[in-house]
């Protein structure tokens, strides 16, 4: 077996170690490279920025702990922005396994920004039905969520004053790791009940949502950790996402180097085979 062949059949655990080191080292020794703001992230930021005070902003935290590293920083940055703009923030989740995490997240950011539950924000929790919940919310919010996650009756909460259904929401953002997520919020929500919609998602599914963005079905898209880092820069509060960008840079570079190496070995192997063929 030639060197190139051996290298191509390398134990994948070696690759795992390389990726592990590329993630760990930049986290321990950050470099802090500049991050450029993309138009799709700015779309969400600008919309929230121009919303009048006490407008109703709905944040659907449609992910579970598995996607926490990518979507949690997005949620924190958006919540900080919304609270800073004094919007009425209504939060919920369509993913049952994300309920506890979402509650902690919303409570933590609200406390940090000095906001009061029931007056400035609420966390409605989770209701069974997936996409059906969006349809039900479009009909009547109080029927879908008679009480919030803390068990308090939703009707009469100052944060929901004048809000009867999704039609009364000024802007909604779904931070999604899959289905139900941004697409479901468009098909069953925005399309039927006419409110502006933005999206946030994991890096893996972001390219799949670009057609929605291009056709104006969503007005902005925060994609993966990079999107979260851009949002953190926009609001001027660098957090976990900006810190993680160096690690992401290093892993991307490592993968590019690995792909380049594998191609070098592949072509050298092909040349060897051709030479052997010519000799015989």
């Amino acid at each position, binding site marked *: 077996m030639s060197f190139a062949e051996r290298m191509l059949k390398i134990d*994948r655990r070696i690759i795992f170690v390389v990726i592990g080191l590329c993630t760990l080292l930049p986290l321990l020794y950050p470099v802090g*490279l500049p991050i450029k703001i993309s138009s799709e992230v700015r779309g969400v930021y600008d919309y929230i920025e121009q919303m009048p005070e006490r407008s109703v902003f709905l944040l659907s935290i449609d992910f579970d*702990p598995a996607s926490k590293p990518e979507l949690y920083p997005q949620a924190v940055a958006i919540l900080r922005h919304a609270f800073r703009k004094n919007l009425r923030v209504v939060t919920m989740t369509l993913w049952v*396994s994300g309920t506890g*995490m979402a509650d902690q997240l919303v*409570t933590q950011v609200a406390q940090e920004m000095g906001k009061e539950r029931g007056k400035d924000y609420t966390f409605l929790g989770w209701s069974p039905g997936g996409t059906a919940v969006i349809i039900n919310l479009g009909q009547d919010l109080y029927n879908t969520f008679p009480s919030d996650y803390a068990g308090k009756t939703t009707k009469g909460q100052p944060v929901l004053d004048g809000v009867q259904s999704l039609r009364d929401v000024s802007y909604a953002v779904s931070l999604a790791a899959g289905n139900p997520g941004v697409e479901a919020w468009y098909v069953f929500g925005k399309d039927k009940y006419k409110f502006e919609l933005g999206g946030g998602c994991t890096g893996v599914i972001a390219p799949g949502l670009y*057609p929605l963005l291009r056709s104006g079905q969503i007005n902005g898209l925060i994609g993966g950790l990079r999107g979260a880092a851009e949002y953190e820069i926009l609001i001027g509060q660098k957090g976990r996402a900006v810190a993680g960008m160096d690690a992401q840079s290093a892993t*991307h570079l490592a*993968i590019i180097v690995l*792909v380049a190496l594998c191609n070098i070995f592949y072509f050298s192997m092909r040349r060897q085979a051709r030479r052997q063929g010519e000799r015989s």
Partner: protein
Amino acid sequence: MIFLRRQLPLLITMITGLVFAGQYYVPHPASEQVLTSATKWMQIIGGFALVLGVTSLFHVHAAKIRRKEAGWGYSVVLYAGMLGTIAVGFWANGKESVEGVSTAFGWVYNFMMVPLQGTMFAILAFFIASAAYRSFRARSREAAVLLIAAVIVMMGRVPLGEYLIPMSGDLSQWILNVLNASVRRAILIGVSLGTVALSLKIIFGVERSYLGGGKE
């Protein structure tokens, strides 16, 4: 019997299929109400269906333990984990925290589920790297084009890439916004037509194999 197994389900499918296809064109609140009721029915049926699933799960793993199949110990762990979590969940009334204090259920959620799920998702990065190393080769011109596009997007999506090759950011945006979006739309058109055709076949009873194969 054949009526209950064949004709009745087909009839229900046809009626509900046509009603809900028509519902899309009726903006009246009564039509919205029908949709809301149907979604609630779906939720209820979905809830009962979970019983089916859990029964299947218990049955499969009970058989494994009984037969002492290879890896039957994992089935015991599954039983313990499932029953334990249900018990803790009932005890904590399904709440992860009460007035800011974490419950036992919250402990299970925060210190078992969150890290385990995070670990599973994190493995993705390692697997992407190994899969790319193993199979991302410029075997043909088309593969070479894909490879170059992938490298540009990978460079353009991280600050280091933009720092080393400043135009990679704009190029990757262009690839994502123009090339990627148009190709995805093309796939989406095909998929949507397939979906509509399949739905029509199901509604009109032309496609019946989902009821259990067989023609009649």
